[in-house]
């Protein structure tokens, strides 16, 4: 095979895996939008907050240490213990559930029957509040996400594929990031679990009922408040998974909240209401932007990925305004 062809395959495979990383973020948006019609602007910040909390708990960091020290003149920063990863993840999930209860109790509960734009504005406020709260609680330093995930390229794959190129061609073997491979597996497990949950459990069916029609769901005794807490909790868990994967790539820092920007074109393309749409949309965006950067990028100065992701999404919107898998909304007059 020619080295050029192998490089092309490498770009496609890496694009697919980058797409999975985008999908992990997009999933959280879809879950909340599907169940409550809210476009949750705070989803990126939720990923940041979850990752900060996980690392803070894991490393035994004293929450609000800066505030405590400033008020009481103390100098405490760490409890002096390390919490095992699994326990730290479980505790973080607990924190995200608590967060969901607080959001429902103090924000959503007061905004029932308000226009979607009002709810959207509320999530913007929530995002800014959480960012500042996370800063006060855990500090703004960059933290290392160490939950035992692998990093670096797969040496085995590189060596195995090195001989695939035609003789005399410069080829160093196929490069795939081990972290991306793990993220792909996690995404598959997550999507299958969410699908089973929504299709085959009573709560899942209640979620779908609420998504279809709030009034009808209420009339058959489904508690809207409980459903919202469950949905925001699941979205919090998905945010934690996204925070772990992206945090392992770049360290846990406040720019993590900006990963939401990568999810928007995925949502536009895949639809705001479809879990498979978030995955397929992510894959299309991931491959599309990587291929464009590889083939056209060098001709026009590079750094085309962010731009191209939105262009691609807009192109799809022209033909399918509801996205590839979104529900077609027909309003009869």
């Amino acid at each position, binding site marked *: 095979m020619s080295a050029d062809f192998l490089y092309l395959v490498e770009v496609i495979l890496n694009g697919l895996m980058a797409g999975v990383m985008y999908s992990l973020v997009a999933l959280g948006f879809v879950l909340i939008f599907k169940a409550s019609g809210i476009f949750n602007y705070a989803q990126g910040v939720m990923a940041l907050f979850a990752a900060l909390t996980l690392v803070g708990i894991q490393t035994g960091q004293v929450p609000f240490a800066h505030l405590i020290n400033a008020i009481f*003149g103390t100098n405490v920063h760490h409890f002096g213990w390390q919490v095992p990863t699994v326990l730290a993840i479980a505790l973080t999930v607990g924190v995200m559930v608590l967060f969901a209860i607080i959001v429902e109790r103090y924000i959503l509960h007061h905004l029932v029957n308000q226009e979607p734009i009002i709810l959207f504005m509320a999530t913007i406020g929530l995002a800014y509040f959480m*960012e500042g709260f996370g800063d006060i609680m855990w500090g703004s330093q960059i933290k290392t996400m160490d939950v035992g995930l692998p990093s670096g*390229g797969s040496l085995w794959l590189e060596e195995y594929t090195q001989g695939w190129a035609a003789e005399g061609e410069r080829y*160093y073997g196929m*490069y795939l990031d081990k972290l991306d491979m793990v993220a792909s597996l996690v995404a598959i497990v997550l999507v299958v679990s969410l699908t089973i949950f929504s299709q085959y459990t009573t709560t899942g069916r209640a979620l779908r009922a609420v998504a279809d029609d709030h009034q009808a769901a209420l009339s058959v005794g489904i508690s809207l408040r409980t459903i919202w807490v469950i949905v925001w909790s699941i979205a919090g868990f998905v945010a934690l998974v996204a925070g772990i994967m992206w945090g392992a790539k770049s360290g846990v*820092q*406040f720019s993590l909240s900006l990963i939401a920007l990568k999810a928007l074109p995925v949502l536009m393309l895949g639809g705001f209401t479809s879990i498979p749409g978030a995955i397929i949309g992510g894959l299309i965006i991931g491959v599309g932007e990587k291929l464009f950067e590889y083939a056209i990028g060098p001709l026009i100065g590079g*750094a085309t990925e962010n731009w191209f992701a939105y262009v691609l999404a807009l192109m799809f919107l022209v033909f399918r305004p509801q996205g590839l898998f979104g529900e077609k909304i027909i309003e009869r007059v």
Partner: protein
Amino acid sequence: MKLKQLATIALTTLAVSAPVAADLVFPSLSYRTGPYAAGGTPYADGWADYFTMLNARDGGIGGVMTSVPECETGYNTAKGVECYESLKGDGALVFNPLSTGITYQLIPKATADDIPLLTQGYGRTSGANGAIFSHVFNFPANYWAGASRIVNRIKHEAGGDIAGKNIALVYHNSGYGKEPIPTLKALAEKHGFDLTLIPVDHPGQEQKSQWLQIRRERPDNIILYGWGVMNQVALQEAANIRYPMDQMFGIWWSGTENDKLDGMASHGYKAATFHNVGSEYPVYKDIQKHVVDAGLAAGDGSNVGSVLYNRGMYAAMTAATAAATAQDMHGEKNITAGMMRDGLENINMSDAVMAAAGLPKFGPEFTGSCANHGGTGQVGIQQWDGNKQAWKLIGGFESPDNKVIGELIKADSDAYAAENNITPRDC
């Protein structure tokens, strides 16, 4: 009654927050929040702590106390301009915007308001031409000096010849990241190396395409002009593809404790710097005693001695030295911003001055003048030691290719003068 209470609260707040009229005011345009907070916080701490130390130890500058009103920019240009507008009326002597984008916006405003800008190691490089940029001071070094010094170092390590080599510039796709491109193009022509430009979009969280390209093309050296998360991801991706770390050079904004990987993964990575490293300087004892131990530190004290803390403190020391120079020049303790500008233009940052400030040999010696607002452009090289988890200065402060840079500065500043109808000062 309510109105009365509100008015009282408002007046009290104003009285507490506004600096005392007689203070020497050194505003801090900081960013302690947002995606770049990890870099902005230690810098702002260093800037504030140095003035706090001067107040406690020396009773201010020339017997006049200093104050540091802080305004959060979030590294956002629009907010930075708002901060400038809100603070300039409080008697601000100098602004240190800590952002190239904000600096570009403030140059015409600050010039019109007769307030100097101190932009050490960032901002508009051609601001070094004092004949045209009367209120911009970017000594001791600028982006072009950094790029030239890195190329000189690469040349030195290659045995003096880099003709035919391929050097890749991985840069933040912004005004800041693009700054070194003209210099590197000129140097590529002069030395005969190939330059590959690889931009990374803000914020730089996803760089797979860029590093796959680097893995395919295998450049001999990489120069990194990044900031924030872009640096950490770039180093992680470099380690992932097993790029030799000692062939990779960052500019000073890509050479902090934030920009390294755990363990030995980034061992050997090098970066340009315009000041020394570590906390083995007498000034730190004073900061510990008068600021940290006294509970007056801007942060929690954990950043003291880090690269960015040092940089903020060094900028504060430069501003304080210029203020003292202005007091001497004008025979006036309560100087104005215009006098401060004169102080910056006549600054003499000698070894003796740095030693007296408790920072002996901390940076290169430099002087200001009407024409030269950029100093000598001397830059050092530091290297990350994974064993000690610390930066070490491995190449002293050396002058860049001032012939190439001088021509570029002249061309760029002349173009600015023509665009803005500025008549160059007779220096």
